[in-house]
């Protein structure tokens, strides 16, 4: 591997750890980033000629720390002369083990006093090592907008003194929830991507999973952290089957299940099993369990809909929402018949009127109970509200069936 390629890999893998160590020592995000950039320039020169150190992350940290001290000194003495730095030689085995400070950094990046979009950008940039350009592209904003967003967030961390620490016990659980929410949001940004820039955005899924793995290692006693990682792996196992050749979404029932990634399914299921042994139930674990039940069914018909319906029932009490109610009614219909599902769905009418999954589910259940006219109306309403072209063409196909057979 060339020095440049190795630096790139090292950067990605070690960025969060190195930056966290630097911020711990200097208490300054901007200084830490600038010093790491300096260190990368040095690394590029030195590794090219002298070879790559055995512990590249530790080497980078050592160099970056010296650069940071140097920058601080120059800032106070106005001394602009270039310093001859006492660099560690490549053979030096760095004497220190870098302590893992990434958890503190995550809590700072996901502090609730920062806007959610800033939390997401900071987490990806600072912990994930994504460049400003990459984060900007993933969120479809210009590079200067993203640079401003990051700078403003860093300034607030500094000026308002957002703490850099693992929160005390009384705050811990709500702050962990905030971390998980940010990681899941990053995952969903990638997962929901379709069309032209889908590959770029799918990287976000990988990044979220990587952050999830780090967090599981740092918070081994948090069941929901395991639950979220399991959920992301199980969802992501369907990646290859979710989009057709044109990049359009393929519905779960119609996916080629042989394309599902069994390794991810196995890993996700094992992590979920581990989470369940901690006896702290939570919404991520429940969603992961639902996803696992889909994953283990060889065909849509073989799905354990009864258990899925019950899991949606628990999810509805933990985190009530319209999506959960609609999915629950669909699962009930699959498990106990369309009339039972319809009975759960119809009371949602007033609140769900502009929510297309509600109309799509209602249309399907009306069709299955042979209420063609009502089904056709519901399909029309769903089509009018649906923004996804694959789902719209599915709904249109069903609507045509209703209209043709109705004549």
């Amino acid at each position: 591997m060339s020095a440049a390629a190795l630096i790139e890999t090292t950067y990605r893998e070690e960025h969060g750890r190195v930056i966290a160590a630097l911020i711990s020592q200097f208490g300054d995000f901007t200084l830490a980033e600038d010093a790491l950039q300096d260190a990368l320039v040095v690394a590029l020169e030195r590794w090219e000629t002298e070879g790559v150190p055995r512990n590249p992350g530790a080497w980078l940290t050592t160099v970056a720390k010296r650069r940071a001290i140097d920058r601080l000194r120059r800032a106070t003495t106005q001394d602009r002369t270039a310093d001859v730095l006492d660099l560690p030689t490549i053979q030096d085995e760095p004497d220190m083990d870098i302590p893992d400070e990434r958890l503190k950094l995550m809590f700072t990046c996901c502090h609730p006093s920062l806007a959610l979009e800033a939390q997401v950008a900071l987490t990806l940039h600072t912990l994930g090592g994504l460049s400003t350009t990459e984060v900007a592209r993933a969120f479809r904003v210009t590079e200067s907008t993203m640079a401003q967003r990051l700078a403003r967030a860093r300034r607030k961390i500094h000026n308002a003194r957002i703490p850099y620490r693992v929160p005390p016990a009384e705050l811990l659980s709500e702050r962990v929830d905030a971390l998980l929410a940010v990681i899941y949001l990053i995952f969903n940004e990638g997962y929901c991507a379709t069309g032209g820039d889908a590959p770029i955005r799918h990287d976000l899924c990988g990044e979220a999973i990587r952050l999830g793995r780090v967090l599981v290692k740092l918070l081994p006693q948090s069941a929901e952290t395991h639950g979220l990682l399991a959920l992301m792996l199980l969802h992501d196992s369907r990646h290859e089957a979710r989009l057709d050749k044109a990049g359009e979404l393929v519905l779960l029932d119609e996916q080629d299940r042989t394309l599902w990634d069994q390794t991810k399914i196995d890993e996700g299921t094992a992590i979920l099993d581990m989470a369940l042994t901690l006896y702290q139930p939570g919404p991520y674990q429940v969603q992961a369990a639902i996803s696992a039940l889909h994953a283990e069914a060889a065909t849509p018909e073989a799905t354990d809909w009864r258990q899925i319906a019950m899991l949606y029932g628990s999810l509805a009490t933990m985190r009530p929402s319209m999506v959960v109610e609609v999915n629950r009614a669909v699962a009930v219909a699959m498990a106990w018949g369309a009339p039972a599902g319809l009975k759960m769905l119809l009371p949602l009418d007033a609140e769900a009127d502009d929510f297309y999954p509600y109309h799509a589910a209602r249309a399907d259940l009306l069709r299955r109970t042979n209420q063609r006219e009502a089904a056709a109306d519901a399909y029309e309403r769903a089509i009018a509200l649906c923004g996804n072209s694959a789902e719209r063409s599915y709904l249109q196909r069903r609507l045509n069936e209703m209209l043709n057979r109705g004549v």
Partner: protein
Amino acid sequence: MKYMMLIYWNHAEKPDFTPEELQKLRQGWLNFNKEAEAAGVLLDYNGLLDITDATTVRVRDGKTLITDGPFAETHEQLGGYYVLDCKDLDEAISWAAKIPAVIAGSIEIRPMYIAGQG
């Protein structure tokens, strides 16, 4: 680190309190002041009279413009402030959450300017 806690509430919705409720409310503020003082974080505080007693001043092109009340129609108005000395934003948030007005109005936490910062 000094934080100013700006206390906002909706004066239009001020309910008619019974004397007992009013007494309880006053006690709430006194308790907060006592607690903040005992913790060594209380630097300053004041309550403000209603915006109907406010005057807004601007100087434009050398002319002093004076208007009654605040410029904009706002639902929530500034009703008072605290200045607290806290070690970080989490501590400031925990104090803000105890200011009696927080359950009906809102508290804006503003880090105070230190020369050379910003």
